[in-house]
């Protein structure tokens, strides 16, 4: 247990440190973007959040499959943790994206492909958690969480594709993709930073979930001494 404490808390601290470094470089050292100016700097947290949210949802999908296969509590805990942390990052990226849109185009929401897809994903995976909260039997809850996660994840490419298509018919510019070399460094640093922090949060959450399960696993009652009567032999 002590060793576990060390590895993921260490990772979390490292992540926090990296976040400071990456954000410092991003805010003060990297050049301003040509067209958008200083506002663009929000990308240094926005993009890493987006990458990691998708990564976590993918991890949740993999954990869900394993959970369904093995029926072990550990994998259910990890699926839940991945979904929850993924949702946190997803919510963050929506807020950041909204701020960016406001600063750039003057509106809080503009139906940008990636932002719209993110909002749908947030609702998709939030549904998994909602379902979970209503199932009290731990075995069934684990199975159903896994099923809902798999069903949600399979939808992701379909959602992305159709939102993109829907938007392309209206020919509106999406957020720019090209990144100057000087910007790559803080971006990568922050990407790893947020990854490490996310892993730390996941480990904590998974541990909490397992603890809750263990609390439920009350030991069998004492065996009753059989009262006399003709035994069956």
């Amino acid at each position, binding site marked *: 247990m002590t060793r576990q404490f060390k590895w993921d808390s260490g990772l979390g601290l490292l992540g926090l440190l990296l976040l400071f470094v990456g954000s410092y470089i991003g805010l003060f050292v990297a050049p301003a973007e040509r067209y958008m100016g200083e506002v663009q700097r929000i990308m240094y947290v926005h993009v890493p959040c987006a990458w990691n949210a998708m990564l976590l949802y993918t991890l949740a999908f993999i954990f869900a499959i394993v959970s*369904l296969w093995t029926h072990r509590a550990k994998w259910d805990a990890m699926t839940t943790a991945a979904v929850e942390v993924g949702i946190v990052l997803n919510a963050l990226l929506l807020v950041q994206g909204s701020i960016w849109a406001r600063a750039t185009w003057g509106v809080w929401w503009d139906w940008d492909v990636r932002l719209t897809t993110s909002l*749908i994903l947030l*609702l*998709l995976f939030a*549904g998994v958690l*909602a*379902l979970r909260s*209503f*199932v009290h*039997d731990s*075995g*069934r809850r684990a*199975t*159903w969480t*896994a*099923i*809902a996660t*798999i*069903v*949600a994840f*399979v*939808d992701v490419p*379909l*959602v992305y*594709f*159709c*939102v993109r*298509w*829907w938007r392309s*018919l209206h020919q509106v510019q999406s957020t720019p993709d090209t990144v100057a070399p000087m910007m790559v460094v803080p971006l990568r640093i922050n990407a790893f930073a947020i990854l490490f922090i996310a892993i730390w949060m996941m480990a904590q959450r998974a541990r909490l979930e397992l603890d809750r399960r263990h609390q439920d696993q009350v030991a069998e009652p004492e065996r009753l001494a059989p009262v006399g009567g003709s035994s069956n032999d």
Partner: protein
Amino acid sequence: MNLIGQVITVVRKDLLLEWRGKGRLISVLLFGVVTLLLFSFAVGPDSTLLRAAAGGFLVLALLLSSTLGLSESFRVEQEQRAIEGLLLLPVDPIALYYGKTLSNTLFLMLLAPVLTPVALILYSVQLDLSGLAVLLGLWTLAAAGLSAPGTLYAAMTSRLQSQDVLLPLLLFPLVIPVLMGSVKSITLILTGDPMSQVGSWATLLASFAIIYWSLCGLLFPHAIEEGI
């Protein structure tokens, strides 16, 4: 008994129940009509606006009615725990799933022939018979797409508290591709399709249906493993 035979038995049973319980279908249809009316009131008697949004409103009304129909399909199973009676028989859960999904698809298909004319009238949209046929065909694809995850989730939520909230909550974000696909393609049918895009949207609808019919069929036996 082979799988197909079991599927057919389940479908026959569901269709018989549907026929006997006609009131349910009628109530769901009336609900759809009310929804169409509410949309017009939300927008106002601006016929240009209504005509442009007709496809969207029609699909939304169909979606909302479909969700009601899906949750109903398992209410009848839970009333006297008939579903448990089925689970006690040597019925392959996969046959149970596909039978139920097929009968749900047929039920949902029945909604369009009634709600479409109502929408056409309310929103002053002209449509010839061939256009109507294509529209109904598109809705069939959409209905298949909705039924696959809809049946799975309706089964899972059928005994939970707040089942009325949970089913739409789980289903609506999931079926956004179906929603978009049907809104887009049906709107094109109603307003004209100069670039022949209906085929592409129809392909999206068909892909969604195929993917989810396969996936949910695989997952359903796991979902009912510890009973529903």
